[in-house]
């Protein structure tokens, strides 16, 4: 940029360049508080702190000019450079300064500290808040008239503010201060808002308006301010443009509700209160008000103030104040009238005595008795009529509430047993509550028939609803058995469940089946389950390229029925695709077709499940990822995406954890979501996070199989083997274990020393699996438990049954390796050339064969090979031959110098050395344990000390290896190998969390 540049260099000028210039040259002082132009601060001597909030600090101060004690509120230093906060703070001061009313704390002065922080001074109030006074009551009836008088004064103060077009927006008992001399003052106007001209509340006088912040920081649309327990629905929903004087009226209603019943309109923990406020769940408050001991006029006023629709509330606080005042006056008048009547009666009686005229005595008495009896009869009759009218109104109100709850319960989906039971219990309780009115007033017997009808409706609906839940649960769980049981068994279970619902697919006609399902509340549950049943019967998943002709006819019949029960055209099309030749391709075409963006969520879910069933899990994931922007608010979308991501190859644990997190954030009451999250965190190495999520799941559903399993897995991972064992035991028998659970449980039993049970469990599980991968895994587990001869026999038998696939030759070959039959093992490995582990192990086996020459030399002369790699192999060979002592001598010599140690660590040999030492110690030789256990710990320690030098992947692999290796895990379970130093080491291993940034 030089002076001799004459003209613009080029024509480039971005759009909105003038806006950019405006922003660049905006006066920075406009966004910060003005410099103190006068030394206001020196006028006050600041004393002790009285209170502190998020925005400011209140201290006691001494006004040196007027010689009076004041309260000085200062904005937090950290907010002093935040223009929005400064604006809000000044706004509070200005609003307070302009509202001159005995019920509003007066603001005396405002100014700026030397550092630029604004402050204002106000009257120092000595006393307690209304909230503290309310807490001190024995019960809501205690001292009611005093609290009503206080409430009236609050209403008057707010009525005054409303007349000045000022909304408080955070009214609650904490913001009402009661002075020592009975004064009542509304404080904290930090959220207050001045309504703009033209809005309602006519008669507003000219209150100078504090300008709104242009950035919207003072009253931003969509932000929520206030306290939910006192918040109107429109305020809680963040519709600040709809918030007007009636929002304060709602808050006054909530305060009155608290005075009358002991609690504000919404109660419960923070989250439930917030949800209740947002959804305007007022039933609980209405019920409390209805049952409280207060007069009907007060209850009615509170209920009107708490109306969900602002239109139904009193227009402003002055109306509320007027009604409370009227009530208090009438109460005083009634008391006064009663006293007058009593005095008059006493006067008349005295007169009567004075007269004592015998001739009139009898007549007077008769007249008096007749008059009294007549009055009494008329009064009694009127009271009776009033009581009956009152009771009838109460009955109608309760009847209506019960009917509403009943209708809501009838509409509940059948999937949540707990919610159903809660709802039906509530309906029953309301029904009984309604019946109490008729019990107390037998005169209302004409209403009995309506109550009886309602009772019958409830009994039928409840029974049907709970039965629906039972069927739903059973039908939902059955497809999960596809991976565990043979299809014939699953189909039989489907048949039994449908039979229990009165649906016999073998004998009933198509029309009868359709009618039965269409007329049921469970229509869609039946439709989904029937489709799963149909696919189980004809095993569509086994024919991804189209059904054989004979199966096609059967399947068509099922689809015809389904088209009537669930005629949605998209789902009909998806179902039809499963029957086509090349059904997998047909499904993919739907998923990738142009209309997919128009599908509703249920159909996306439907298609996703079917694609997954047809082995197109990646496509299901892709479908959900691509649609997530449309359905991110659907809990099931996040949950299902998380679930599928854990099943991809390889599983996407971290991404799955994100979706599970979204699912549990949206629905924290879902134990399945917490279980999924726990699993993902566990697999990502975040053990403690996983344990927390699993604990949450168990708190929500202590009996849920998945939550118990997740807890067991986390406890195992954290070393609490005894508790993990108890949980695994409690899981047995509930349902057949999936293969990985069988393997885990057996592994735990093995580590706990119960090798016999571990082996039995694994052997029992072996024939259940239809996939070769878990079978290979179990054979490997069995090989580890030994003896190798028995493992070899099992491997041979199973591999023959499975026609000797490459995967099963690996554990088999290892059993040969364990017996020192290297050449046979090598041949076995070579017969499986396409399987990666076989190449690795074949090389290993070949190296061991080569190392045999070193073995001879070592045994003859104690001579070690020169290269570390060869030394390592020699040590492994010695270990295979169970010559622990010699193997450890080699390891010891390999790792004697620091340089050799470093090289050994690079080769990963230190953990091998430690493993050998531990096995030797475990073999039962006490002196060996004493000598080699500390050495083993030293070797592991060396690896752990240098975790930080590894990259994340290497470090995670090392930690996982340590945690999963049964030999190392034995050091965590105590017993012979217990040693305090191991505990420290394990603590460090368990605390290790891979860094996500890497």
């Amino acid at each position: 940029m030089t002076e001799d540049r004459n003209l613009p260099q080029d024509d480039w000028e971005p759009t909105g360049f003038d806006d950019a210039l405006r922003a660049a040259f905006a006066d920075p002082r406009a966004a910060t508080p003005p410099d103190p132009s006068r030394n206001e601060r020196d006028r006050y001597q600041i004393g002790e702190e009285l209170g502190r909030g998020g925005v400011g600090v209140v201290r006691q101060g001494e006004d040196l000019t007027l010689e009076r004690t004041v309260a000085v509120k200062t904005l937090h230093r950290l907010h002093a450079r935040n223009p929005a906060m400064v604006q809000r703070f000044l706004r509070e001061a200005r609003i307070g300064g302009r509202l001159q009313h005995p019920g509003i704390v007066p603001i005396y002065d405002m100014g700026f500290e030397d550092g630029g922080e604004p402050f204002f001074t106000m009257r120092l109030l000595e006393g307690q808040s209304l909230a503290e006074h309310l807490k001190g009551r024995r019960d809501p009836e205690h001292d009611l008239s005093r609290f009503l008088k206080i409430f009236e004064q609050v209403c008057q103060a707010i009525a005054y503010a409303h007349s000045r077009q000022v909304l408080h927006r955070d009214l609650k008992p904490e913001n009402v201060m009661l002075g020592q001399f009975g004064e009542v003052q509304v404080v904290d106007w930090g959220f207050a808002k001045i309504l703009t001209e033209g809005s309602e509340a006519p008669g507003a006088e000219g209150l100078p308006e504090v300008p709104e912040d242009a950035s919207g920081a003072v009253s931003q649309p969509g932000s929520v301010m206030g306290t939910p327990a006192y918040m109107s629905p429109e305020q809680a929903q963040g519709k600040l443009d709809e918030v007007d004087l009636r929002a304060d009226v709602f808050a006054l209603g909530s305060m009155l509700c608290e005075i009358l019943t002991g609690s504000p309109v919404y109660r419960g923990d923070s989250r439930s209160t917030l949800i209740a406020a947002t959804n305007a769940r007022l039933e609980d408050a209405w019920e409390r008000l209805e049952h409280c001991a207060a007069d009907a006029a007060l209850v009615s006023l509170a209920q009107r103030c708490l109306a969900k629709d602002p239109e139904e509330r009193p227009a402003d606080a002055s109306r509320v104040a007027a009604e409370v005042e009227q009530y208090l006056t009438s109460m005083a008048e009634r008391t006064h009238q009663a006293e007058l009547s009593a005095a008059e009666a006493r006067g008349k009686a005295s007169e009567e005595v004075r007269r004592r005229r015998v001739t009139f005595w009898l007549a007077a008495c008769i007249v008096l008795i007749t008059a009294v009896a007549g009055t009494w009869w008329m009064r009694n009759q009127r009271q009776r009529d009033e009581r009956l009218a009152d009771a009838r109104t109460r009955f109608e109100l309760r009847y209506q509430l019960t009917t509403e709850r009943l209708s809501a319960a009838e509409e509940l989906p059948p999937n949540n047993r707990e919610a159903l039971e809660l709802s039906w219990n509530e309906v029953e309780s309301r029904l009984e509550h309604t019946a109490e009115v008729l019990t107390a007033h037998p005169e209302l017997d004409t209403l009995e028939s309506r109550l009886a009808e309602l009772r019958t409706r409830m009994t039928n609906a409840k029974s049907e609803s709970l039965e629906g839940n039972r069927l739903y649960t059973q039908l939902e769980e059955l497809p999960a058995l596809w991976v565990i049981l043979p299809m014939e068994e699953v189909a039989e279970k489907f048949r039994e469940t449908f039979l229990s619902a009165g649906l016999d697919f073998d004998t009933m006609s198509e029309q009868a089946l359709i009618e039965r399902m269409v007329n049921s509340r469970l229509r869609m549950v039946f439709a989904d389950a029937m489709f799963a049943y149909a696919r189980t019967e004809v095993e569509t998943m086994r024919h991804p390229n189209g059904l054989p002709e004979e199966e096609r006819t059967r399947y068509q019949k099922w689809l015809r029925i389904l088209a009537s029960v669930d005629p949605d055209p998209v789902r009909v099309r998806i179902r039809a695709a499963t029957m086509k030749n090349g059904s997998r391709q047909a499904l993919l075409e739907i998923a990738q077709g142009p209309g997919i963006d128009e599908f509703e969520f249920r159909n996306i879910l439907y298609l996703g499940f079917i694609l997954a069933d047809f082995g197109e899990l990646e496509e299901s994931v892709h479908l959900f990822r691509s649609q997530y922007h449309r359905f991110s608010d659907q809990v099931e979308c996040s949950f299902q995406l998380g679930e599928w991501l854990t099943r991809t190859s390889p599983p996407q644990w971290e991404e799955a954890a994100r979706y599970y997190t979204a699912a549990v954030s949206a629905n924290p009451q879902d134990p399945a979501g917490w279980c999924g999250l726990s699993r993902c965190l566990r697999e990502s190495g975040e053990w403690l996070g996983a344990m927390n999520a699993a604990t949450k799941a168990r708190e929500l559903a202590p009996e849920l199989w998945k939550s118990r399993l997740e807890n067991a897995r986390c406890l195992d991972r954290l070393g609490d083997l005894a508790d993990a064992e108890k949980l695994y035991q409690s899981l047995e028998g509930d349902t057949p274990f999936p293969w990985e659970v069988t393997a885990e449980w057996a592994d735990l039993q093995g580590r706990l020393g119960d090798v016999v049970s571990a082996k039995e469990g694994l052997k029992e599980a072996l024939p259940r699996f239809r996939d070769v991968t878990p079978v290979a895994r179990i054979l490997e587990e069995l090989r580890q438990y030994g003896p190798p001869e028995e493992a070899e026999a099992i491997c041979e038998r199973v591999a023959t049954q499975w026609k000797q696939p490459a995967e099963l030759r690996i554990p088999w070959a290892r059993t040969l390796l364990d017996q020192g039959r290297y050449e046979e093992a090598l041949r076995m490995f070579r017969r499986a050339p396409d399987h990666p582990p076989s190449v690795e192990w074949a090389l290993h086996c070949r190296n061991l064969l080569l190392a045999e020459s070193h073995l001879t030399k070592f045994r003859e002369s104690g001579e070690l090979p020169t290269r570390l790699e060869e030394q390592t192999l020699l040590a492994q060979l010695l270990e295979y031959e169970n010559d622990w002592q010699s193997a450890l001598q080699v390891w010891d010599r390999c790792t004697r110098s620091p340089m050799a140690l470093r090289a050994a660590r690079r080769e990963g040999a230190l953990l091998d050395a430690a493993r050998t030492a531990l096995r030797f110690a475990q073999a039962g030789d006490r002196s060996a344990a004493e000598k080699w256990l500390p050495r083993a710990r030293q070797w592991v320690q060396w690896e752990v000390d240098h975790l930080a030098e590894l990259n994340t992947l290497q470090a995670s692999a090392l930690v996982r290896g340590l945690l999963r290796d049964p030999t190392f895990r034995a050091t965590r379970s105590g017993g012979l190998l217990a040693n305090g130093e191991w505990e420290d080491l394990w603590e460090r291993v368990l605390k290790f969390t891979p860094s996500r940034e890497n």
Partner: protein
Amino acid sequence: MDPSRSTCWTMIRSASDGAAADRDEFARRYAPLIRAYLANRWKNSSLSAEVEDALQEVFVECFRNQGALEGVAPSASHSFRSYLYGVVRNVARRAEQRAAKQRERTGSGSTTPHLDALPADEETLSREFDRNWAQSVLREASELMRRHAEQNGTETSRRWDLLRLRFQNGMPIREIAKQWEEDPAKLHHDYARARQEFKDALLEVLAFYHPGAPAAAKREAEELISLL
């Protein structure tokens, strides 16, 4: 802007290596932006008292070994703004999680829920952050232009002042000409040149954030202005 320093990435790496001057520079440039974001995110929340601590945590996160900086490859295509926003948001979330845990632990049993429990509106906050970022970069460009003008003499200083009066005080050129007793035509010519000088300053500032071809800086300038 220190000419010996080529980009924001070298500055932050140098700060990460412990250079005190760079740390101060980093804090000077970004502390107001980060503070504003956190204060905005935590307004009406008890966490507003944690703003300064969280600000420190952001710096620690940026400077520590294997910290957030390790995960990004400095290049023309990588947005420093996104990087910084990511770090700040993560720190804020962590603070919120800590506070939530603390509340759970203390379990006051109050029937009044905590407003901190309300989820943050990430989209609005992100927009606000971007807007503040844009304003801060533009102010930096204005400041750079002023410094260049001071070095280059009275005429250039007057051009800076011309822009200031036009855009800060909203005065039309004709009125400024009258006030300065200048020929309006000449002043219009100076105004065009001043605009060009501001554009140059802006591109120079953006080159600090987006090392690469000038075309990339221009694209970035356009995007930046669209954030306002």
